[in-house]
C-alpha cells in the first residue's frame, strides 16, 4: 500500500539518533510547559522556535522538535487540571470538571494515568486519520462556509447546559458574561473599537490566557488567603494519591468513550478555527448527554476525564490536517507551526504532500514516536507529578501566584496584562462565592469572537438575509442537533436533575 510505504520512508527519516533525541527533548519540555498554568502549546512552541533555529536544525528535525513539544503540551495540560483544579492550557479546561473531583476523592493517580491513556488513544487515532484522510479531509473543511460555522458554534453553546452540573441559569449567565467579554476590542467586520475606552492595550481584545490564569489560578490563591486561618482548605487539603495505574475495569468502562470522542475531537480539529478547545468541549458535553445516566459527570466520573482528554488530543492531530493540506491553521499552535514552515521555505498547501514528501512523512512518523514516548514518559512520571499534591498549600499557593505572574509577563511583556489578570482573579473569587461556574466564561471569551464573525460574514455575503443561516443541508443538520441537544435535557433531564438534588451540591462551584 502506498501510504504504508510512504510511512515506512518517514520512519527511516525519523529514526536517527538526533531526531529521536529531539523528540524526547520536545516531549519532556512540552509536558512541563503544558503543565504550567499559563504556558500552553502555542507559547511552548513559540518559545522553542529560537532554539530550533540556533541549533541550525534542518526542516525535518525542527518540525520533529516542535511537534513533539506540541503533543507534549497537549498531554501536560491535564496535570495541573487534575491536581490543582487549574487548567494548564485552554484545551485542558474541561478536564478540570471531573479530573479535580477525582483527585479530591483520592484517585489522583488513576485520573492522571487514565487521562494519559485517553490522550494516547486520541492522538493515536488522530495521527492515523491524518495519514489516511488528509487529502480527502480538506473537502470537509470546504463544506463549511460562514453559515455552517455559525451553526456549529451555536451547537456548541446549545449543549453548554451539559457542562455545568449545578445551576443551568448560572452557567447561562457565565456564558453570556464570557460572550460579553469577547466583544472587547476592534471589531474586524467594521474596524471600529468596542469597549476599549481609548486604551490601546484593549484593541486586540482580552487574551484568554490572561483570563484563564486570572480566573482559575489567582482566584485559587485568593481563596487560600481567605481560608488561611481556618486551617481547613477545601480544594487543596490533604489528598491521597491512590494507585498509579487505572484498574482494567475503568479502562474498559472508558474505551467506548475514548473512541467516540477521539473521532469527534478529530473532526473538530480539522475545521479551521474550531481547534482543540472546541474539540474537548464538544466531546465532554456530547459524552455527558450520551452516557451520564446517573448524573455522576462533574463529580469525578472517569469517563468525564477520558472524554475531553481523548477529544483534545485528537483535535491537536486533526488541526494539523488543514495546516499541512491547505496552509490554514486549525488552531493557535498550528498557526505558529505554519509560520515555522514558511520560514523553513516550505509552503504548506495542496502541493505539500507532492513536493516535500520527506518532510510530511518524517513529521507523521515523528508524531507516532512522540506519542509512544509520551505514553511511556507519562505513566511512570505520574508518581512524580502527584508529589505536587503533597506540597502544603502555604508553599504551593505562592508558587502558583509566582508562576502565574512570571508566565503571563513572559508571554506578553506587558504590565497591563498583569493588571487584567488580577482583575480576573478578583472576578473569579467573587464568582466562586456566588457559585457561578467559571468554565462557560472562558468558553464564551474563547469562542465568542469566531462565532460572531462567522454570523456577520454569512449575513454580509447574503446581503442581510438571515435565512442564509439555514440554507444548506449541513447547516440544517447542525441546527437540528443543536435544538435536540438543547431541548432533550429539559424533558429527559427532569428525572436526572431530581437525582442530582438528592446527591446534594457538596462540590460547590470550584468543580466547575
Amino acid at each position, binding site marked *: 500500500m502506498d501510504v504504508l510505504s510512504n510511512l515506512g520512508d518517514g520512519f527511516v527519516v525519523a529514526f536517527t539518533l538526533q531526531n529521536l533525541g529531539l523528540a524526547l527533548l520536545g516531549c519532556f519540555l512540552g509536558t512541563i510547559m503544558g503543565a504550567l498554568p499559563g504556558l500552553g502549546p502555542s507559547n511552548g512552541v513559540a518559545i522553542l522556535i529560537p532554539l530550533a533555529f540556533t541549533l541550525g536544525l534542518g526542516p525535518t528535525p525542527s518540525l520533529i522538535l516542535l511537534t513533539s513539544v506540541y503533543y507534549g503540551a497537549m498531554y501536560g495540560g491535564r496535570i495541573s487540571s487534575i491536581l490543582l483544579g487549574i487548567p494548564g492550557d485552554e484545551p485542558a479546561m474541561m478536564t478540570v470538571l471531573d479530573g479535580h473531583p477525582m483527585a479530591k476523592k483520592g484517585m489522583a493517580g488513576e485520573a492522571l494515568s487514565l487521562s494519559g491513556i485517553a490522550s494516547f488513544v486520541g492522538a493515536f487515532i488522530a495521527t492515523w486519520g491524518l495519514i489516511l484522510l488528509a487529502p480527502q479531509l480538506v473537502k470537509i473543511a470546504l463544506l463549511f462556509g460562514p453559515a455552517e460555522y455559525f451553526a456549529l458554534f451555536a451547537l456548541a453553546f446549545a449543549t453548554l447546559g451539559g457542562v455545568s452540573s449545578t445551576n443551568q441559569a448560572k452557567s447561562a449567565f457565565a456564558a453570556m458574561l464570557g460572550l460579553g467579554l469577547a466583544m472587547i476590542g476592534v471589531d474586524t467586520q467594521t474596524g471600529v473599537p468596542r469597549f476599549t475606552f481609548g486604551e*490601546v*492595550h484593549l484593541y*486586540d481584545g482580552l487574551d484568554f490566557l490572561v483570563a484563564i490564569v486570572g480566573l482559575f489560578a489567582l482566584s485559587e490563591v485568593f481563596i487560600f488567603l481567605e481560608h488561611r486561618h481556618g486551617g481547613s482548605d477545601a480544594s487543596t487539603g490533604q489528598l491521597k494519591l491512590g494507585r498509579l495505574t487505572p484498574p482494567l475495569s475503568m479502562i474498559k468502562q472508558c474505551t467506548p468513550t475514548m473512541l467516540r470522542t477521539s473521532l469527534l475531537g478529530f473532526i473538530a480539529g480539522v475545521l479551521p478555527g474550531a481547534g482543540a478547545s472546541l474539540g474537548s468541549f464538544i466531546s465532554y458535553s456530547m459524552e455527558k448527554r450520551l452516557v451520564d445516566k446517573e448524573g455522576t459527570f462533574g463529580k469525578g466520573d472517569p469517563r468525564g476525564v477520558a472524554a475531553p482528554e481523548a477529544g483534545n488530543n485528537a483535535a491537536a492531530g486533526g488541526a494539523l490536517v488543514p495546516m499541512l493540506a491547505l496552509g*490554514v*491553521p486549525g488552531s493557535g499552535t498550528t498557526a505558529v507551526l505554519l509560520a515555522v514552515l514558511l*520560514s523553513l521555505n516550505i509552503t504548506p498547501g495542496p502541493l505539500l504532500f507532492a513536493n516535500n514528501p520527506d518532510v510530511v512523512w518524517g513529521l507523521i512518523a515523528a508524531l507516532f514516536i512522540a506519542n509512544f514516548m509520551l505514553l511511556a514518559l507519562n505513566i511512570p512520571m505520574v508518581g512524580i507529578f502527584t508529589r505536587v499534591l503533597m506540597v502544603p498549600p502555604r508553599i504551593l499557593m505562592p508558587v502558583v501566584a509566582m508562576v502565574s505572574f512570571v508566565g503571563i509577563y513572559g508571554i506578553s*511583556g*506587558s504590565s*497591563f496584562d498583569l493588571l487584567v489578570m488580577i482583575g480576573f482573579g478578583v472576578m473569579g473569587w467573587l464568582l466562586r462565592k456566588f457559585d457561578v461556574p467559571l468554565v462557560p466564561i472562558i468558553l464564551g471569551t474563547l469562542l465568542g469572537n469566531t462565532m460572531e464573525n462567522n454570523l456577520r460574514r454569512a449575513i454580509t455575503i447574503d446581503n442581510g438575509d438571515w435565512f442564509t443561516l439555514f440554507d444548506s443541508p449541513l447547516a440544517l443538520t447542525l441546527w437540528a442537533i443543536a435544538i435536540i441537544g438543547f431541548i432533550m435535557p429539559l424533558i429527559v433531564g427532569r428525572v436526572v436533575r431530581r437525582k442530582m438534588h438528592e446527591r446534594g451540591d457538596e462540590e460547590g462551584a470550584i468543580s466547575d
Partner: protein
Amino acid sequence: MFVTATRGLIAATVLGVSAFAAQAQDFTPENPECIAPANPGGGWDFTCRQVGKELQDLGLIDKTMQVVNLAGGGGGVAFAEVVNKRADDNDLIVAASSATATRLAQGAYPGNTTDQVRWLASIGADYGVIAVSADSEIETLPQLLDMIKSDPRSVSVAGGSAVGGWDHLKVLIAASAYGIEDVRSVKYVAFDGGGEAVTQLLAGSVQAFTGDASEAKGFVDSGDIKVIAVLAPERLEGDFADFPTAKEQGVDAIGANWRGFYAPGGMSDAAYDAWVKKIGDLYASDEWKEIMANNGLAPLDLQGADFQQFVQNSVSEIQDISREIGIIK
C-alpha cells in the same frame, strides 16, 4: 573551483573590512534589540528574527540581536512604548509594515503620529493580488470590476484583514482607479488571515479574494485559484510572471505590503545613519535576495530619507481613501 573559492574569500575579506570600517568610523549598537509588535509567529516577528540573524551572519552587528515581542493594539502598544519610554534608545529598531502605516493613518494608535519615530529602511514588499477560483467565469480585473459596478451586491470579496485594513484598501484602490465612485458599496468580508479567505473562495462562499502574493502562492501552484491582477508597477518575477498587472488592464492601482523598520524619534543622527547603512547593506547582499525570493518578497529598495518620504506619502494616501469609506472623519 579554486578560483571561486578564492573569489569568495576575497569578497568575504572586503565585506568584512568594509563592515569593520563602517563600525569603526561611527556608531555600533552595544545591545542591538528589535521589537516585534506582535506575538511570535507573525510577520513582524519573522522580520525581526530573520533580519537579526542575517545582520549577524554578515558581520554587520557583533552581538546577537535580541528580539522582544511586544504585542497588543495591532502594534500600537509597541509604538506607544517606543514614543513614551524609549525615545532616545540608539540600540533599538522596531519591525513595521503597511499595517503600521494603515493604523497610523486611521488614528488607530491613539495619540500617535508618523513623525514621532524615525523611519529607517524597507527590506522588501509583498505586492497585492486579486484572485478568483480556478473554475470562475471571471477572467480579467475589468470584468470583475464591471460586475461590482453594475450590481455590488452580487460580488463578495474576501480578505485576511479587518475592514479598513490593508487587504480591504487594496481592492478599494483598484475599484476607485476603475471609476467606481461609491467605493463603500464594494462588499468586503473580513476573515482571520489570507489562508482562511482563500479557503472560503474555494468553498464558493465568496467570489473574489484580495491578499498578498505570498499568501496566494501555494494555491496558484496547485492550480486552485486564478490570479486576475497583480497590484504591482511591473510584472513580478518567477511563478507570478504569467499574471498581468492591474496597470496592463487599464486599472492604475498599486498595492504593496512593504516590510521595514522604524527607530525611536530621539535616536542620534550617527546611530540613525549607521542603522540605515546596515539595513541597506543587508538588503544589497545576495543572502537577502535569496531570502526574499523564498518568502515571496518583491524588491522595494528605500532607505533613510527616501523611506521616510514613502511612508508619509502612503499614510496620506490611506487617509484619503479611509475618509472616502468613512473609517475616519
